[in-house]
């Protein structure tokens, strides 16, 4: 009578995967996974949302910092980021913005507010810059905050 274990194997044959075979399988699986992920990613439609309002507020700030109606002028040179106190005291807007805008400039001595804060509107974008105010007897550091409303 012949006894079997249900497997027809030869004596001494070991049916376990070899190290090389495991690595080959891992390599194949990794390649398939990467290609699958790439294919899945390629099915997505990429869109982007840029903050047009924020970019335009930066444009406004850059123009305001060097605007003739507020910036300090000396010997035919205009100093960007340095505001003339006398011009701020008698401010008349020279940089227009297409939305409601509120500007607040303050230093350790004085505070200037331009534009209006519309009630019932939410702040859309907000920016703050360090500035310098030119007084007749020297320079004073300050800040400028600008807000736009929707």
């Amino acid at each position, binding site marked *: 009578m012949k006894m079997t274990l249900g497997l027809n194997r030869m004596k001494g044959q070991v049916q376990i995967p070899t190290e*090389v075979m495991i*690595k*080959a399988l891992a*390599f194949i699986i990794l*390649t398939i996974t*990467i290609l699958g992920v*790439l294919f899945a990613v*390629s099915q997505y439609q*990429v869109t*982007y949302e*840029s903050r*047009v309002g924020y*970019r*335009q507020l930066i*444009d*406004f700030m*850059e*123009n305001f*910092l*060097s*605007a*003739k*109606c507020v910036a300090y002028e000396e010997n035919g*040179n*205009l100093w*960007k980021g340095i505001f003339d106190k006398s011009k701020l005291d008698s401010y008349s807007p*020279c*940089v*227009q*913005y*297409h939305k409601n805008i509120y500007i607040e400039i303050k230093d350790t001595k004085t505070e200037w507010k331009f534009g209006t804060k519309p009630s019932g509107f939410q702040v859309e974008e907000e920016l703050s810059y360090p500035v310098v105010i030119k007084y007749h007897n020297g320079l004073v550091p300050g800040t400028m905050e600008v807000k736009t409303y929707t």
Partner: protein
Amino acid sequence: MLKGSLFTTYFLFFIGSLVTAIILVYFILWGGLGIIKTLTYYSARANAELISSLISASSSFYGDFDFTYEFEPMNCSLEIKENEVNVTIPSSTVFVERTQIVIKKTSEFILPITKPDYITINEFSTECDPEVKKSFNSAKHEDDIGFE
């Protein structure tokens, strides 16, 4: 020292990995570049934003300022007015270096130009060319900005 057959196997793994890595890097770069080009070069909004910001930047500069802007080969129209920029890119198919680029939707974008009141902008309009790159120059002289 590995035996000959084992060394060959590992060497083939190494070459296979290297080829796969090179193909992946190529596809990622090629795909990424294509996405960026589609979102910037062929978008009316991106072009309008860039042109508006460049004009605004030159108007904030105290002195003379020049810049050159270049459109990719495509169908488009640009109109610069005193206070706004209008870019229109119609749906079309263009061939750039034997690569077919399909612009699916017509896009139009109008953006205001932020500038001081004393800066004057000369009106300007131009059309793009589907065969070659189209460029225009902007020149700021004192308080006047002109295009050609």
